[in-house]
């Protein structure tokens, strides 16, 4: 996939009343599959809606596929497919009519739109259910049909806003397979907005991490995961049973640490200090180290590190 940027933002600020959803965002999204990562409320959806021209930024410039968003939003929408986060469909239609209708709205001739609708519905796994009213669909099926309507007019760029929301594990895996296939085998550039790190890591080559309306970090996942220090899994026992003081001491020493689902924490030790630095800090605080294991940096570490810095 080409490395040239398909989306660029220069100093984009979006205000909702007094609160800023995007604060002076400058970023470039490369071609291929790019993850737009960030916690809820980071500004991911606002960014996508701004790129579609739904929200006019208060400051800054945006380009999508080389076209200025403010100057020619319709030219952009003709070449972009948007899968919204919330349930969305045209009421009173079955799936094939709905998707064909979306194709016609995008400018496809009626016969072509109907043919594409059948093809795309088979592709997203709704071939057998294509004559059912969309309103009777399960949550997972509604996610798939949103993808189908975004694909029917063969966009050059896809905006996928939380595409696995509400899906069961099997459906989620299938949706991620589809997204990965589109981005890597079908020549469709895509921006996947999600707060789920594994989804982004599985489907995307690069990532833009957002937090509190700002870009916290950006780059290819492989480059971001390159160690600029060492990561350890750590479990400790403190004399008082209170971990907070020890965590504060680690952070004061410049170490990033964040909890995982288990009772171990992941600690990022920058530079070449390594385990020796951890042991020294634990000894100084009279904390017992019960478990210490070197680990491989994950996207979660990148995310935690970036959001911590933002």
């Amino acid at each position, binding site marked *: 996939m080409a490395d040239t940027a398909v989306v660029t933002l220069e100093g984009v600020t979006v205000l909702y009343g007094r609160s800023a959803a995007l604060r002076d965002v400058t970023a470039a999204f490369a071609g291929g599959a790019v993850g737009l990562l960030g916690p809820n409320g980071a500004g991911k959806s606002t960014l996508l809606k701004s790129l579609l021209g*739904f929200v006019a930024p208060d400051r800054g410039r945006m380009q999508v596929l080389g076209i200025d968003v403010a100057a020619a939003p319709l030219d952009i*929408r*003709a070449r972009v497919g948007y899968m919204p986060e*919330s349930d969305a*469909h045209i009421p009173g239609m079955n799936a094939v009519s709905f998707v064909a209708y979306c194709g*016609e709205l995008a*400018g496809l001739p009626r016969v072509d739109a109907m043919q594409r609708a059948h093809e795309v519905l088979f592709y997203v796994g709704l071939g057998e259910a294509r004559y059912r009213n969309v309103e009777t669909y399960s949550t997972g099926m509604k996610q798939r049909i949103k993808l189908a309507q*975004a694909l029917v007019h063969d966009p050059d760029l896809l905006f996928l806003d939380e595409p696995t929301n509400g899906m069961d594990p099997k459906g989620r895996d299938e949706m991620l397979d589809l997204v990965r296939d589109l981005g890597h085998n079908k020549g469709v550039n895509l921006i996947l907005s999600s707060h789920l790190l594994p989804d982004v890591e599985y489907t995307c080559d690069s990532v833009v991490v957002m937090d509190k309306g700002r870009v916290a970090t950006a780059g290819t996942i492989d480059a971001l995961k390159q160690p600029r220090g060492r990561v350890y899994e750590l479990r400790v026992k403190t004399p008082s049973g209170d971990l907070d003081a020890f965590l504060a001491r680690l952070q004061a020493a410049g170490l990033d640490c964040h909890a995982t689902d288990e009772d171990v924490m992941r600690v990022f030790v920058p530079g070449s200090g390594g385990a020796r630095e951890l042991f020294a800090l634990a000894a100084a605080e009279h904390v017992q180290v019960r478990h210490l294991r070197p680990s491989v940096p994950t996207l979660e570490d990148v995310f935690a590190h970036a959001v911590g810095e933002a």
Partner: protein
Amino acid sequence: MTDAEAAASAQRPPAAAPEAAATSIRDQGYRRYAGGRAPRGQAWLVIARSGIRTMIGKRAFLGLLLLAWFPFFVRAVQIYAAANVPQASQLLAVNAETFRQFLDQQEIFVFFITVYVGAGLIANDRRANALQIYLSKPLTRAEYVFGKLAILASFLLLVTWVPAIVLLVVQIAFAGNFSFLTNNFFLFPAITVFACVQVILGATTMLALSSLSNSSRYVGILYAAVVFFTQAISGVLFLVTRSTSFSWVSFSANLGQIGDVLFRLRPRYDTPWPVSFLVVALVIAASGVVLERRVRGVEVVA
């Protein structure tokens, strides 16, 4: 393998490879589209065509449309009798007022069709979050509104302008000459302008109300309330003042006043017709402002 086994084996579909079974979603593939695309600005036609097709598919609505054409047949019989039965020519004489009365009678059908077709036009899209689907395609908000407006306007014109013009043609056909038309040359523009004012007022008001809610039922009730409540206020003001100078507060009285002027009849209310015209224009403009604010791809709550 026996011959029977070989035949059975030939009829069986080939077994799917394990890998293909695991990735059955991708078996159908995804192809890039290399066909043509319609020029920009025609999406409203797609919206209108789809909406009209959906409504025509409803039996109850077809019944309502047929009922709305019943007065046309009554008037056609009247015109036939006036032209061909000398005894009836005085009693059933056809003049400009006949056409005005016909359009007056159609008002009740205009009301029901406006509620039936219009209430859900935007409200249902809002309920299903369809606006962000529509507006993520290459069409403007104005195109979306125009498409929705075209659905309602088509059906309203079908029960006002179309039958009135056909009646005019019927009159000429039964009379066997153009003397009625030449004596009442204003009728064609009067019918056209009045039907357009009636349709645009009803359709824009209904669309604006429809954009305010996610419930088509609530919108229908709201529209009925607007029509009947303004009429009731006008009635109360008449009782208090003993004058129809305040008829401009009524939705339907303004239309009546404009209709009388267009058909060169004595206005039925004391309100000057420019005032009625101004009120109608203001209601249409206000509806436009509401639609401009409510039809958006994203709802921002600051």
